[in-house]
């Protein structure tokens, strides 16, 4: 990792963007509910507060409990550093689709076992739900990325995303459908509405929030921070898909690209907030139906990839 100006931009984006996204989502939701809402950077202040707090641990838990948040934070940071951002190559090179997916899986494994560690029925059932949801959504996520990879003739993320517009061989339809599939599976992975309600207070219905019900202090801070990074990671990939599709329709000047990615990410935040304001949480049994939409989008994307691949 060499500290160039590109990497500097990277690091600045990584530090500010996640909190900004969460803040924007909360602010817009508050607007729809006629509330003022918390300040945009409230999640950052929360983080600082949590890091200075004492920690309460369950008597039943072991070292696994504290390792979960640590691993998920380190893993998320590593992934954020190895995924390209539109005009920029990542500081950690060589990450391919499958490595990316399975580092996410590693994080999930440890978050599942650390949430069962304390022996709390709430967090354990949430862990069971998380496991179920994520394996249902996994094909959509993988196939959306693989469709892009097939069009780009490489499984290296750096050769799929982060390429200059003129070198980009991936057709519009693949970008668009992959973007949609990533967005829908992102809703599942990020436990947003209508799969999971991040702001409810009923333990029985929550997934992500219930999994970390036993965490407190710096431990909880790491969980929240890694969630923010995950949001950035997913929205970043989705936004890049949509910006590429846009660039196939109208010619975007190269300098505008990074800016447009940021704008699209904020727009995705707005969209998420609107979905959360206007839709209701699905009942547990309906979730597979929702995930089926994500899978079908990714199948459409891969079919488009095949159709375009032979033509060129």
């Amino acid at each position, binding site marked *: 990792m060499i500290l160039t100006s590109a990497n500097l931009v990277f690091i600045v984006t990584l530090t500010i963007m996640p909190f900004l996204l969460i803040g924007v989502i909360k602010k817009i939701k508050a607007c729809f509910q006629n509330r003022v809402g918390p300040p945009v950077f409230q999640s950052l202040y929360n983080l600082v507060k949590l890091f200075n707090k004492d920690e309460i641990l369950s008597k*039943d838990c072991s070292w696994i409990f504290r390792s979960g948040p640590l*691993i998920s934070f380190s893993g998320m940071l590593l992934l954020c550093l190895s995924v390209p951002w539109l005009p920029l190559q990542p500081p950690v090179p060589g990450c391919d689709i499958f490595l990316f997916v*399975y580092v996410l899986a590693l994080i999930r494994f440890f978050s599942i076992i650390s949430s069962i560690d304390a022996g*709390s029925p709430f967090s354990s059932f949430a862990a069971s739900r998380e496991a179920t949801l994520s394996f249902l959504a996994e094909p959509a996520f993988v196939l959306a990325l693989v469709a892009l990879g097939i069009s780009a003739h490489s499984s290296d993320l750096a050769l799929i995303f982060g390429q200059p517009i003129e070198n980009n061989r991936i057709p519009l339809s693949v970008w668009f459908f992959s973007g949609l599939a990533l967005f829908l599976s992102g809703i599942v992975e990020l436990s947003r509405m209508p799969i999971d309600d991040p702001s409810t207070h009923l333990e029985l219905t929550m997934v992500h929030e219930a999994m970390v019900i036993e965490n407190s202090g710096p431990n909880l801070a790491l969980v929240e921070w890694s969630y923010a990074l995950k949001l950035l990671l997913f929205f970043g990939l989705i936004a890049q898909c949509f910006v590429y599709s846009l660039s196939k329709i109208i010619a975007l000047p190269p300098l505008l690209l990074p800016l447009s990615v940021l704008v699209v990410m904020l727009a995705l935040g707005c969209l998420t907030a609107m979905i959360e304001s206007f839709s209701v949480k699905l009942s547990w049994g309906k979730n597979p139906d929702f995930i089926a939409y994500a899978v079908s989008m990714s199948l459409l994307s891969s079919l488009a990839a095949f159709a375009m691949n032979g033509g060129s």
Partner: protein
Amino acid sequence: MNFVTPLFLAAFMLLLASAVLAIVTRKKFSLVCVALTALACVFLISGALQIGRSDSLWKLSGPFYLGVAPLSFRFDALSAVFSALLGLIALCAALFSHAYLKHLSGRINQKYYWCSLNLFVLGMLGVFLAANAITFLVSWEIMSLSSAALVVWNFSESKGQKAALIYLGATRLATAFLSAGFLWFHHAFDSWDFAKWHFNQADLLVPSMMVALGLFIKSGIWPFHIWLPYAHPSAPSSVSALMSGVMVKVAVYALLRFFLIDGSGSIYLAWVCIALGAISSFWGVLFAFVQSDIKKLLAYSTVENLGMIFLAAGICLYAQVAQLKEIAALAFVAVIFHSINHGLFKSLLFFCAGAIDSAVHSRKLDSLGGLINKMPATTGSFLIGSTAASALPPLNGFVGKWLIYQSLFMLAASETERAMNVLAMILIGLLSFVGGLALAVFAKMFAVVFLGRPRSPAAENASECSKLMNAIPAALAVLCLVCGCFAGPLITYFCRMHPLYSAVSLPSLPIGQIAFLFLAFAIFFYLAFLRKNGERIRYFSTWDCGYGSLLPKMQVNSQSFAHSVGTIFGHLLQYVTHFEIGGHDRRHFPERIKAETVMISLLESRIYGPALALVRLLNRHFSKLQAGSIHLYLLYVFLVLVAMIVIEVLA
């Protein structure tokens, strides 16, 4: 200087000596047997490492002639890889048994155990080295029968009887198909030498399918997997480790040797391998999810992994037919590499299961829990084993799966039939789904066994088992890590074994680098955020809504964790939950609540059961022919004679 033949011979002799010694001697034989077997395994490993890339043939002449063909062995790179794996796992199993059998003492006949174990290893070694069909079949039979003897050790229990019968049935079927296929090949090529046989000729499709079918049955591929979940839980853990780690790989080895290594391929076999492999991987992991016995769960996970290996073999066959060299080489490496990986992590997990069994005297997930504080060393090994089995980086399981993904990805992107592109894509989706399920399976198993509060008094009072029983899984765990982080050289090595290999450019995997960065990050953030909070931690009970202490039963268990999966795939799993709530005011103050989950194996109830019933029905009618009366038999002889004369006259 070449020591290959002497080393292997010494290994053979020592195994045989150990087997005989176990039966003959009267006292203190256990330690001697362990020493002899371990020494044999060491010879085996060093012999296998000596082989390298050389290729030599060794024939035993004289009195050891097997009727129609000599006892002959071939030492080449492919058999070296598999015999090295065998040597390693057998070494671990022998050492582990020494400590583990104390747990079973009084219930197991140690003499027969050691005799069968040595013969078992000997048989597998013979299969890996066999250069002709007769040597192969003889070794195959030694392997099958001695492993059946090991499964049978608790024949007094009805469970043991059932397991032994099912397993024996499966091995008989496998041998029958193999022998029939081999006879046909002998007829076609007029030789018993494997070197003269060509399995992939179009006109020999039927016998090659027979051989393949025998191999499928032996490796427990869907729909022949039903013996696995019976045999593994019934056998002692050290034997399960050998069976799951190496014995099912014997079939993979034979598949490689017969159909893949010569660089040709049969398209039909490719389709069969791909289809059965894909179904097995899904079926295995799905059924693993709902199991509540550690070893049964591991057995189903073996079905899953073998499915993935056969899937890769199918891809390799297809690529060889379609002349896609890079994909063929990659899939070939995937088959070998994942076989080794699975051998390492699955035997590790079975050894851990044995350690848990000897400490808690139970393998039921729902009577374990909280073992992390009682058995820290086993926990560590088991954690590494389960992360490897869920194919998570940086462990070896991930590398194997990554190779399969990459070969599928390259196939999807290649210039071949459009249908194959689409199929490869669908298989990628299926594998990712299976991967997600496998993660859930192993997360569930690890969490239910080691975390939370103990669910039974036995688990509460468990203590760490002996040092030897900790050291063996730990050593395997280290190997899993090494094979994962330094996969690059190994992949190149295996790739050179492929005949179509001509310096193909393989996609690179920076897994060591990523693992290093990950570790660096984790240590840094631990020091930065969590450690300094060390003195500011307060301990309190788990959140219980203020109702008072949580009982051990108020935790997620293996059934409740799997409930949502059970309902989603209810039809496949035949998963039914009955609730019974009773009492005077059953709505508000139920006096009695009973929930019961029933699961019937679909294949057994719908296919094998009716098939067996049909065989029994036919038997009942055919048995009338065998009335036991001498007059009747004389009549049969006479009738046959007449029939033959008539045929002769008519012809």
